[in-house]
């Protein structure tokens, strides 16, 4: 045991490839990790190549079926109130839901990592101020904030503005999720940075003469990368979850139907009351599967990577 510890330098970045390989190996040795990764693989393929599986996204002008028709040969999962094929909508929904989730995650992790590393590393008043800011953002209710921010953002950028092919309405969702979830990530990363810093004092010689920027990038960052990865995966689960909720209450873009948007249409069409289960079950199942899969993988990663949770006896 002692020999193994002595042989592993506390903060030098090991070869990234070897680390990634052992990480995947570790994940695959856990049942929940395998299930999660398998689900993500399937949905990843659907999101990347929806046209290959079900053809282009159907809209009101290209509908192929009758209205609210139960599943049958022509439409394996039935149709919606416009006659659109549910299978088609659900597969394309994967792309839209996961794209929004991904963008929101990137914003969250960037904000959270930068603020967390700075707060933890610089410490003092900066740390105190940033943590108060965190507290403030943790208190803001995500959904209601989204509701009041949406019109403001649309007024500022214009409803038809686009970024990377995503319309402004969806960008609102991305921004709001980013704004309300970075604080959690920042807190987690900050506490890890604090303990890394603690260890570095033992090994002070290594960092003597280096500037704070160099130390942060070269010595702190490699030690919190694991945690950032685990946090990113968990954030993605939360982002897909929140996007579904926001789209459901009417913040979605009907021309780019995510799963939440499809469920919102189903609600408006009264699908539950009409017993049109085929309209509700496919998108709902997809949301649950993706959120669950990301949560499983995130927890597994956290167990494997996070020294705190891995240290449990």
């Amino acid at each position, binding site marked *: 045991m*002692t*020999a193994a510890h002595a042989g592993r330098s506390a903060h030098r970045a090991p070869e990234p490839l070897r680390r990634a390989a052992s990480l995947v190996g570790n994940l695959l040795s856990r049942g929940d990790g395998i299930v999660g990764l398998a689900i993500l693989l399937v949905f990843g393929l659907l999101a990347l190549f929806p046209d290959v599986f079900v053809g282009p996204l159907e809209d009101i002008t290209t509908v192929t079926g009758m209205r609210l028709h139960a599943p049958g040969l022509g439409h394996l999962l039935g149709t919606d109130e416009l006659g659109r094929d549910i299978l088609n909508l659900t597969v394309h929904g994967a792309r839209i839901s996961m794209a929004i989730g991904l963008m929101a995650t990137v914003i969250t992790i960037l904000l959270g990592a930068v603020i967390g590393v700075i707060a933890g590393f610089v410490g003092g008043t900066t740390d105190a101020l940033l943590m108060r800011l965190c507290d403030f953002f943790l208190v803001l209710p995500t959904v209601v904030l989204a509701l009041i921010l949406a019109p403001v953002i649309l007024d500022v950028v214009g409803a038809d503005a686009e970024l990377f092919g995503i319309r402004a309405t969806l960008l609102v969702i991305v921004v709001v999720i980013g704004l309300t979830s970075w604080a959690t990530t920042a807190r987690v990363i900050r506490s890890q940075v604090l303990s890394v810093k603690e260890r570095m004092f033992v090994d002070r010689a290594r960092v003597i003469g280096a500037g704070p920027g160099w130390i942060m990038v070269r010595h702190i960052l490699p030690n919190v990368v694991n945690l950032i990865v685990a946090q990113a995966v968990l954030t993605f689960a939360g982002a897909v979850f929140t996007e579904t909720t926001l789209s459901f209450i009417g913040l979605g873009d009907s021309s780019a139907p995510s799963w939440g948007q499809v469920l919102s249409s189903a609600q408006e069409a009264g699908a539950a009351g009409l017993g049109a289960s085929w309209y509700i079950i496919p998108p709902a199942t997809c949301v649950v599967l993706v959120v669950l899969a990301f949560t499983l993988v995130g927890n597994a990663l956290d167990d494997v990577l996070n020294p705190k949770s891995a240290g449990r006896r």
Partner: protein
Amino acid sequence: MTTEVRGRLGRLLPDGADPTAPLLEVRDLAVRFRTPSGASVRAVGGMSFRLDAGEAMGIAGESGCGKTTTALSLVHLLPGTGRVSAGSVKLFGIDLVPLTERQLARYRWREISMVFQGAMNALNPVQRVGDQIAEPIEVRLGQSRDASRKRAGELLELVGIPRQRASAYPHELSGGMRQRAMIAMALACDPAVVIGDEPTTALDVMVQAQILQLLERLRRELGLSLLLITHDLSVIAETCDRVMVMYAGRVAEEGPVSRVFTAPRHPYTVKLLSSFPDIRTGRRALSMIPGSPPDLRTPPPGCLFAPRCEHAMPVCAVETPPEINSDDGVRVACHLFTAGDAVRRDAASEVKA
């Protein structure tokens, strides 16, 4: 047809107890842990020792040598995947190893209690100290709540804490006070054996001395039988009758403190003793032991200390040394000594140097 058997201070012994058997007799005890990858690690291998009534024995060795594991395994307290894989632990002649958790509960604390290192963590932070001391009296001895509280107060006074402090929470006490409270708790059911697992390690020197004096006094007044685990040889020298030196999960040397500390035989004991400063002889260069203990996942064949031993012979890398008992009560497991006389094969003076 069990007859009541009473031992020390007229205590009622467990059913099936043999009053003529030694208090605690451990034979060939082995403990295994399963690693996350599924491998099995032998943390303690073939330990034997005996503790008589009223005796204090110290267990010494580097950290990770299996001292604590040995102590915890006596009453099945090993964490996680740890299991006793072989051997016997006889208390009053009753083997504790094959007992179920339910049967064993009878022996915990009433017969074998413990004083852990760092009482801050070993005491429940959200429960009053008095309640924690009273708990085993009430639950295990079936006394009324009032009687247990009263007894807890007496125990606190016994270890030098005013009984009014019973209502304090652990964090409200100083480190030394917490350790005293922990000792009071260990005495709650008047146990046959008290195990101290590094009871003074987390304390500063002055408080350490006070706690050791307290243990000394309690031993004298109550006739306690004490198993003291520590890496600090001076603690053993001050409080114990006998010492057992462990290395990598095995006994290296065991015997009366007076013998072992003045005339160590096992090369590891020699090194261990010389790595401690001796106040009487003043400062001197401490000799370090080169290398580190073996990785127990892949133990080397033969003597586990051989890779670090200056006196290693070809046989050491092949054969596990047998334990040799000598006439003066010292037991040593080293190829340098032969059966019967326990005298070194080559010049004995060399080791002592």
